[in-house]
């Protein structure tokens, strides 16, 4: 870690009476240690602070299920859960996610080898809610976060939330139907 410059306080937890601030301009690579909690596991990464959360998830932690589609927060392919809420992982730096619980698509399935599909994943499959599958992890995490907060969501509300992400293959209808049927089945399960 030749470029690490810890004395300068690059990872400065700066309060009113803390260490001096490094106000010098950034020249060359600037590294900091980041601790992330992803899918219940803790990871430590030494990286440049400019790395977005999605790049760290994909290229440092090798959790490549989360995808990159636009890097400006519109397409939603990078959607993950941050403390249970859907967020764009391209619109935050990994350093900002310290202390939060992050969930990615890799956390959805179950079973000893992680290949047992969740009810949401099964609904996407049975409704043909995916074609090329590139946007799918983003939609899954969007729906997972939304339904957890609003299990009673109507189909119209689901469509409104699905409008947060872009899909180029399906025309969205099968995605809406998949989420709606999953929500309905969960509600039915609750009643029983």
């Amino acid at each position: 870690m030749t470029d690490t410059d810890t004395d300068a306080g690059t990872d400065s937890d700066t309060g009113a009476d803390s260490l001096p601030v490094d106000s010098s301009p950034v020249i060359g690579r600037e590294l900091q240690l980041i601790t992330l909690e992803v899918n219940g596991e803790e990871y430590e990464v030494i990286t440049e602070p400019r790395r977005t959360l999605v790049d760290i998830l994909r290229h440092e932690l090798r959790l490549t299920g989360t995808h990159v589609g636009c890097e400006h927060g519109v397409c939603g392919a990078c959607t993950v859960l941050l403390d249970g809420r859907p967020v764009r992982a391209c619109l935050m730096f990994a350093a900002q996610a310290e202390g939060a619980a992050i969930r990615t698509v890799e956390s959805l399935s179950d079973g000893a080898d992680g290949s047992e599909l969740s009810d949401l994943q099964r609904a996407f499959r049975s409704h043909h809610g995916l074609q090329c599958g590139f946007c799918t992890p983003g939609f899954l995490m969007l729906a997972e976060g939304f339904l957890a907060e609003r299990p009673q969501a109507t189909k119209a509300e689901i469509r409104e939330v699905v409008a947060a992400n872009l899909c180029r293959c399906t025309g969205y209808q099968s995605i809406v139907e998949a989420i709606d049927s999953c929500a309905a089945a969960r509600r039915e399960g609750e009643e029983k």
Partner: protein
Amino acid sequence: MRDGPMPGVPGAGVPAAPGRGGRLVGRSVPRREDPRLLTGRGRFVDDIALPGMLHAQFVRSTVANGVIEAIDLTAVHEVPGVVAAFTAGDLALSDIVAQLERPEPEFVETAMPVLARDRVRYVGEPVAIVIARDAYAAEDGLEAARVSYTVRQPVTSAAAALAADAPLVHEEAAHNTLVDVSLCATDGIDEVFAAADRVVRVDTRTGRQNALPLETRGAVAHWDDREEQLVVQTCTQVPHQVRTVAARCLRLAERAVRVVVPDMGGGFGQKSVVGREEIATAAAALRLRRPVKWIEDRKDALSASFLAREQHYDVRAAFDADGRILGIDADVVCDMGAYSCYPFTAGIEPLMASAELPGVYKVPAYRVRGRAVATNKAPTAPYRGVSRPQYVMVVERLFERAARELGLDPVEIRRRNVITDFPYTGVNGITYDPGSYLESLDLCARTLRDEGWYERRTAAAEEGRHLGIGYACFSERTGYGSAAFAQRRMAVVPGFDISEVRMDTSGAVTVTTGTMSHGQSHETTMAQIVADELGLDIGAVRLHQGDTDRITYGWGTFASRSITVGGSAVRLAAGKLGEKLRRIAADRWGIPWEETALGRGRVHRRGDPAVTIGYPELADLAYLRAHLLPKDIEPGLSATATFDVFNDGTFSNATHGVVVELDEGTGRVEILRYVCVEDCGVAINPQVVEGQCRGGIAQGIAGALFEQVTYDAQGEPSATSFLDYKVPTAHEIPEVTIHHLETPCAFSATGAKGAGEGGTIGAPAAVLNAVNDALRATGVELDRTPLTPETVHRALRGLPEPAA
């Protein structure tokens, strides 16, 4: 010898019946692709990480038309993390050249260098490649590059390009015209128009669009010392064509290049041509002997990737007093941007439009001129539908206008003109195989009528609201074989497909295809075909695609060819393998092989289903105890088949019906109802077909109402983010009801016709017609897409479209 059932291969019982009526074909079987894609275990290009891998980005032209005076990369090398940077001069690659076998001026050959050498022709054109330890450093490196240009006046529209004194995009292409062909000119057509009761004219323009796969383009290339091969993992619809171009540009034997396609996040045509960046990435990997990854970012994907669809039609149609069409006279100009794409050339759009424009109608006289014009914009590639969304819009506008002028019902005028007797050979020389043109039109119109939309339209008008109903009735040629592509006179003629089906000692099957699924579900649908043919469970069949070392040869996936052509090859190969299995079994029984039949996972004696031999036992003979095989049967269990189409292909067809309401206060177009009646012959997997329809319709609506690639007067792209390039969301795209009709293809091995593009083709015409119907009280008709709310709002106040 093993006994009992083996995993994935069911026991005997139900006889295999291939094609429609089989166990799997025709059923919405859950997709084989889904489990890995749903769990984040797919592997897309950007998911690949190789030891020591470097990251590339491109220094791109900042001017639309200019001469490169100097490229200074000195400072780039100083940027921390940058490993190398190369210009065209450093890499010395051959150009990418796409050719038509047509004389000038029908076709002017132009070369596309991998990196710009002396000229740049659009903003975003790659000028140098920067390779760094990570993607961040690579981008730092781009900022340090210094390129100086002598800026020339750009041509930013087809009209400007055709002007007498226009600057030339390519010195060799006079009038900036790359293609100028008249494919059809019926004798006496001028007299037909002169004598006609009614001549209507439309002047339509369609906006430049980006096919916009959500996964951008990208490649990971590395040199494999052991195989003595350059391995290029890239998301392409045409792996073998990428291999050919890479080998030629890098002057390698084609054997020394292996192209492998991982999971692919859509393509829609944009990835059916060979891009410059993947070749440059491969060249850098070869030069550095280290893995190099290039992932196109969205800004580059929106501004510097392959685009499509910017076309201008000036078309007249002659009708008799009863609304029967007498002739069409069309002038088609396609703005192809700066370069001709490989392998299709700049002819892709004008030749498609010229050949097929008469569509589903009985048009007795036809004259067309189709031109491809070069401009200083990012180049054009095929995009889902290729010209058909445009010419269908033109023809459907012609019928709507004629109906209005002749006082006829818009559905009735179409009914009087659609082809009903098949096969039908049109004025364009194309023979149309059977379809359900009239049936689809009637069912679509009846559906909207039965749902009460016509009454609602009347009621709305009385309340001062603006409801409109519009249709598009069209066909789509699919299953282009070598014969059909040869008519284009491409120097490279796609068309056939090869499949190999191989059974292992456990009785499980591996199938290869030269097609390349990127969302179309081939791992499922091809497996359905093979499983039915051989009487296997779908789980016993695995598809291999997208690896030039494992696939004999292929033309990839485009033009809705995969199920018609690739699926036929797959079925024929499986059939051959089935015959071999029967021959081995027949030998054991000492009977002629014709007296055997395939059952579920086994061969049985015809007429005596109790006498059977399971596939594992036959495979055991074929591989492990081959000494028991008869002399005329070779060891091993594999079979190869090719399929090609020797006629004009097969036509899928559909009618789309749309109801819209226009908001008087804002001009917003709201789609209230969307009905699609489609016929793609035998649907191997109806759910997959519906998915293709709905996805295609969404892209068609996008073109009709939302998306447009725009440039300023200097040729600077002005829609380089998703804020400006407006991809519609679930809020804008309506639910679509789909009805299926089935007119099987007579010559494909499965009865299937292509289903990939139809949705996209019909939607712009149907939406535009519905908007114009809603505007009928204003007297304004709109003929340009995308229709913006502002244009609609103006029209609602009786103001015409702004001048082009």
